[in-house]
């Protein structure tokens, strides 16, 4: 099984361990990820805060490259990239003029037919059936699945899971032996793109999330987005400053949770790279 792969910048830098764990579980479960050659940054929040055309042209180039390289389906683990790529595809499909403008700017042919999967969709589509047989040490923890905003919204475009109270990660967690808790902040934004420029706001928003999860007895937070991860993990000191008493529950990528369940090592999954110690 071969699928196209768009890592995006975060997975190459601050979120290396996400990349490592995605790669590791795919390898263990016999799925080959073929990286799009010569890919570029999707532009993230910065591009569409500043320039609409640019915010479409950057993702469009990625999609065009995938087409050129014969991929009809790509996995995009970063929720932000997944969102930008999907929105771009939708907008270009619905506006011929815009499409022409963008195609002219990037200088590549573009059809818009590539199927874009986020990591959960990829797991559901290709790994769900093979995971149970490979589980060696059940992931027996009560965890809070945190979806963030970019994975489920805008629902009209992404059409992924339920927009309020999504369930797909919860189902995966149950499948590997974990107990997903019911909590109130599954899709509330953590502050995403303001991480560096308004750390104060991010700390506040992320604090709400971490606190609700901890209050309800979660032993870890499970995410599928590098921005959620860095806000909840790397910014923990800032978060703890906002909170009355510090919270030290770790934040794991869903792929790391699966990796642990199917017996992969801490290093293979990059768990040692987290700021909040993974003491599961």
């Amino acid at each position, binding site marked *: 099984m071969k699928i196209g792969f768009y890592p995006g910048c975060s997975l190459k830098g601050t979120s290396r361990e996400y990349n490592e764990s995605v790669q590791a579980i795919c390898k263990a479960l016999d799925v080959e990820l073929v990286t799009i050659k010569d890919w570029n940054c999707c532009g993230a929040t910065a591009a569409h805060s500043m320039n609409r055309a640019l915010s479409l042209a950057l993702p469009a180039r990625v999609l065009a490259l995938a087409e050129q390289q014969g991929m009809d389906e790509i996995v995009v683990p970063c929720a932000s990239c997944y969102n930008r790529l999907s929105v771009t595809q939708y907008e270009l499909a619905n506006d011929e003029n815009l499409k022409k403008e963008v195609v002219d700017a990037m200088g590549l042919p573009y059809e818009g037919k590539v199927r874009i999967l986020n990591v959960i969709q990829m797991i559901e589509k290709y790994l769900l059936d093979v995971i149970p047989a490979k589980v060696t040490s059940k992931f027996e923890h009560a965890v809070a699945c945190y979806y963030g905003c970019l994975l489920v919204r805008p629902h009209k475009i992404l059409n992924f899971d*339920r*927009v*309020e*109270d999504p369930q797909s990660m919860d189902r995966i967690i149950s499948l590997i032996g974990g107990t997903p808790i*019911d909590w*109130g902040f599954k899709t509330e934004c953590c502050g995403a793109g303001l991480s560096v420029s308004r750390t104060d706001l991010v700390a506040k928003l992320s604090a709400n999330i971490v606190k*609700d999860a901890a*209050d*309800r007895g979660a032993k870890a937070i499970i995410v599928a987005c590098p921005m959620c991860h860095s806000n909840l993990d790397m910014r923990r000191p800032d978060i703890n400053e906002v909170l009355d008493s510090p919270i030290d529950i770790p934040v794991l990528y869903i792929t790391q949770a699966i990796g642990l369940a199917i017996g992969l090592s801490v290093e293979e999954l990059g768990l040692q790279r987290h700021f909040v110690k993974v003491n599961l």
Partner: protein
Amino acid sequence: MSKIGVFVCHCGENIAATVDCEKVANTAAKFDGVEFATDYKYMCSDPGQNLIKNAIKEHHLDGVVVASCSPRMHEPTFRKACSEAGLNPFMCEVANIREHCSWVHEKGDATTQKAIDIVRGLVEKVSRDHPLESIHVPITKKALVIGGGIAGIQASLDIANAGHKVILIERDPSIGGHMSQLSETFPTLDCSQCILTPRMVEVAQHPNITLYTYAELEKLEGFIGNFKATIRLKAKSIDEDVCTGCGTCTTKCPTKKIPSEFNQGLGNRTAIYVPFPQAVPNKPVIDKDHCLHYQKGVCGLCEKVCPTHAIHFGQDDSFITEDVGAVVLATGFNVLNTDFFPEYGYGKYKDVITGLQFERLASASGPTSGEIRRPSDGKIPQKIVFIACAGSRDPAKGIPYCSKICCMYTAKHAMLYQHKVHDGESTVFYMDIRAAGKNYEEFVRRAIEEDGVNYVRGRVARVYEKDGKLIVKGVDTLLGAKPVEIEADMVVLATAGVANAGAEELAQKLHVSYDPYHFFAEAHPKLRPVETNTAGIYLAGACQAPKDIPDTVAAASGAAVKVAGLFSQPDLVREPIIAKVNRMPPPVFSTCVGCFMCETACPYNAIEREEIKDRRSGKVIKTIAKVNPGLCQGCGTCVSFCRSKSIDMQGFSNEEMFAEVQALLED
């Protein structure tokens, strides 16, 4: 050769100021077939009418054209005058030389010429007109009322009290509808059951009313005055004639955990059940989907304990047919459930309930005997939040319209809560308060001013549960959209009022139109609000749009009057302006070729099929179209569809219209 009289009216100066009336009369006098022509100051006045009457008698006129104001004004006047002079009224035509001529043009030759042309057109038409007789259709003086909520109850009683027979069918085991579920009712706070139950009993006992509960309409054929209804009587699995309603069976039935529809899932019922203590009829039915006997072939306890051997497991649905002259639709409405709202938890929080569930909690006959207790743990909520417009006025996820009743019942709920939980805190999140009714605004103000209900203008974004509390995140738009967060013990959603399940299907069965939300459509939103577009079928209550009880009852009485008005006539008299398929002697019988294009075109299903049979052998020679005069409304659509020109319209026939057009263009 026809003898036509032309009468040109001056209408004082209204016509004469711009049209040379004398010239019109003089010119008309020279038209072929015109026997007599004159002009006069006021044709519609008594002397004017006498002028016409005398001329008819004197000149033996067989057609009359009155050139005057619009026929929409005085056609009946002049036709009546003709009739009084012994001329068939349909041999009188009105030429509109006022609204369509003298008033819209300047004085001049062109205007007078136009008046002359108009008269010429109608002279040609009237010379081809045929005497027509009004149509008489017999009426079956018995009404069918569908739905036994307060609307159906009121309509049935009103019709029955007017002396006519009524068949009332109700889908559920008891009549009463939503009103029977309510606690107290705005704006007076009287107990719903107390005012409703006597009427339910009256229905059951009224000699003119035949009540079928657990029954649904299967089929409706026919037309106004002459419908034939087929009714399905769903098997109740008991013999109602024998059952005494003692209730032994329901206490013994082991299947006890079925969520009660009447209590909106807040209580349970058994498989053999009476929906509520005041039910009419007060006899049980067996819910086959949950009964152990039907599902697993075991139990049979009810049969064993019944002292009168009333239980009949072998019963099947049965069918009856009834001839009725009119139908009243009163099938009511429903409300959305809480699972409809993603942001309020997809229905997963037990203490987020609908307004209808709140009614059951507040009702003395409800599962908590009228104490406000939360469904999850039975605690009395100290903080309660009401959310108005839940699903209403929400084109994105719900319905765009305003459900009309919820502002009022929300105020009522908050008030009832404050009356019952004195130290409790209630907050209503609203967008607008719609209290446009007699004593309604006063009622809402009372909730705010006297009972201290906290009204916050803003829509709630989300509700989630934490530590047994429901966190309600709203906003106060009157404070610059300041976020408001309330930790509530219970949340009541004023969920949107929507059309009842199966409304669309029923509408199709009856050929009545419905709106995009599946509410039945009235014939005219203002002037015919209780009629449908199908003659003889009327609307009552919330099946038309969400309505409160006063509006529902008013509409029901309105519909009843329409039925009583229809039944008060000896038979139905209709204008003969209807379509007719030509008939001629054998062997042709009719030029109709039986293509039935007309049938597909007719909006009123007025086209029937007639088989022409050989008189001796009885073999079908030909199938041709036939217009049902009771159904035909005279729109003429069929006429323009018929390629062989076999169907024609009386009073607007092809011949008449061709002649009129031709004459209009002559000069």
